């Protein structure tokens, strides 16, 4: 079936099987492999993308369900001139990653969290990231990255 959606501002149209998951549509049909597949069971959050601005786990959404929607992946976060999005910049500044596998999902989940709660406490961030697992960092620097990003003027425009 033909599935159309907007990915990072670009209209996409691909002929895929009805059973195609959004994450596979993004990785295989669109060719954007920044969104990782971790557990593939709605647990780890590695495949988190924004669907109409809200975080979702793209392993548990059919591409067909997202037809007509706006999707943002990690590739759509930085500005066109290469300047990092404030959440990405905060990860760099705070050393918010080690192996990096969970990072795209973390960045998307934090972006959604900060949209809903622009001035979170540390507790808000820890609770808000309950759907994203990291096996390297112990979360400390990821939480710090979210808090630093929340203080970026760009996030409050």
């Amino acid at each position, binding site marked *: 079936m033909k599935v159309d959606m907007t990915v990072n501002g670009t209209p996409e149209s691909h002929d895929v099987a009805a059973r195609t998951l959004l994450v596979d549509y993004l990785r295989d049909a669109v060719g954007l492999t920044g969104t990782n597949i971790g557990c593939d069971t709605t647990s780890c959050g590695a495949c988190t993308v924004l669907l109409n601005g809200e975080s979702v786990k793209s392993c548990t*959404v059919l591409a067909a369900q997202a037809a007509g929607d706006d999707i943002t992946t990690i590739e759509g976060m930085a500005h066109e001139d290469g300047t990092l999005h404030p959440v990405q910049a905060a990860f760099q500044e705070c050393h918010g990653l080690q192996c990096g596998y969970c990072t795209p999902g973390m960045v998307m989940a934090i972006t959604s969290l900060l949209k809903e709660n622009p001035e979170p406490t540390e507790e808000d961030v820890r609770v808000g990231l*309950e759907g994203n697992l990291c096996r390297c960092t112990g979360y400390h620097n990821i939480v710090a990255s979210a808090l630093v990003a929340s203080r970026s003027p760009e996030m409050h425009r």
Partner: protein
Amino acid sequence: MIPASFDYVRAGSVDEAIGLLSEHGEDAKLLAGGHSLLPLMKLRLAQPAMLIDIGRLRELSYVKEEKEYVAVGALTRHHDIAQSPVALASAPVLAHVAGQIGDPQVRHRGTIGGSISHGDPASDLPAVLLALGGTLVVQGPNGRREIDAKDFFLSFFEVALTPEEVLVEVRVPRSSGQWGFEKLTKRAQDWAIVGAVAVKTSDGVGVGLINMGPVPLRASAVEAAVTSGAKAIDAAQLAGEGTDPAADFNGSVAYRQHVAKVLVRRALEKVGV
């Protein structure tokens, strides 16, 4: 993991969905947010031949205050219930529990109707519905009918919907009073190993149990004890009565029945019993 093949159709209205269900019978499944059904399909535990996507029916997404109850559209997402000013004021336990389901990503997709019609005894909302004495409004080829929550959950993953019916609205009595919700999980986002909810209602105190049998349960013995004046610590001793929990890697039957007593006591204490 990829689901088995199926035909996908988006329904433009509830009537269209009912028409498709009538035509395709048990081969077809409704798809709302997909956060109960798609994981089962990926594991090939469910292999419907057709998915009827009703996720876009915005007319079934609302939280409204009626004279005696709060009406929640079946396609209202957990996230929207948790944020709803009406739910927070007039059904605060529902808003709270909706905000505890899964994680933010799950709450952005999952719906109250999907969760309830899935009939999973380990899910949180059915127990809240039972404790509050809620009602389900379902629509089929012959119009709408109402089903008491206590009559809705028939057996393991089986509910009182006929194959051509759609759950359209969930009603709970207005209850701005005290409530307690306790859930034991090993990780924040997990299903409850055991959960308990207690709510002050016009009839007394309603108590619901999560994951204590093949269906979501109402702790009737506890409720009766509270009505006859028992204190939380004594009433909670009856929390295992009538339960039939599964034994699994999270705990034995005896462990779950013990935990139920502890959680029911805590929930009752929060409603001042």
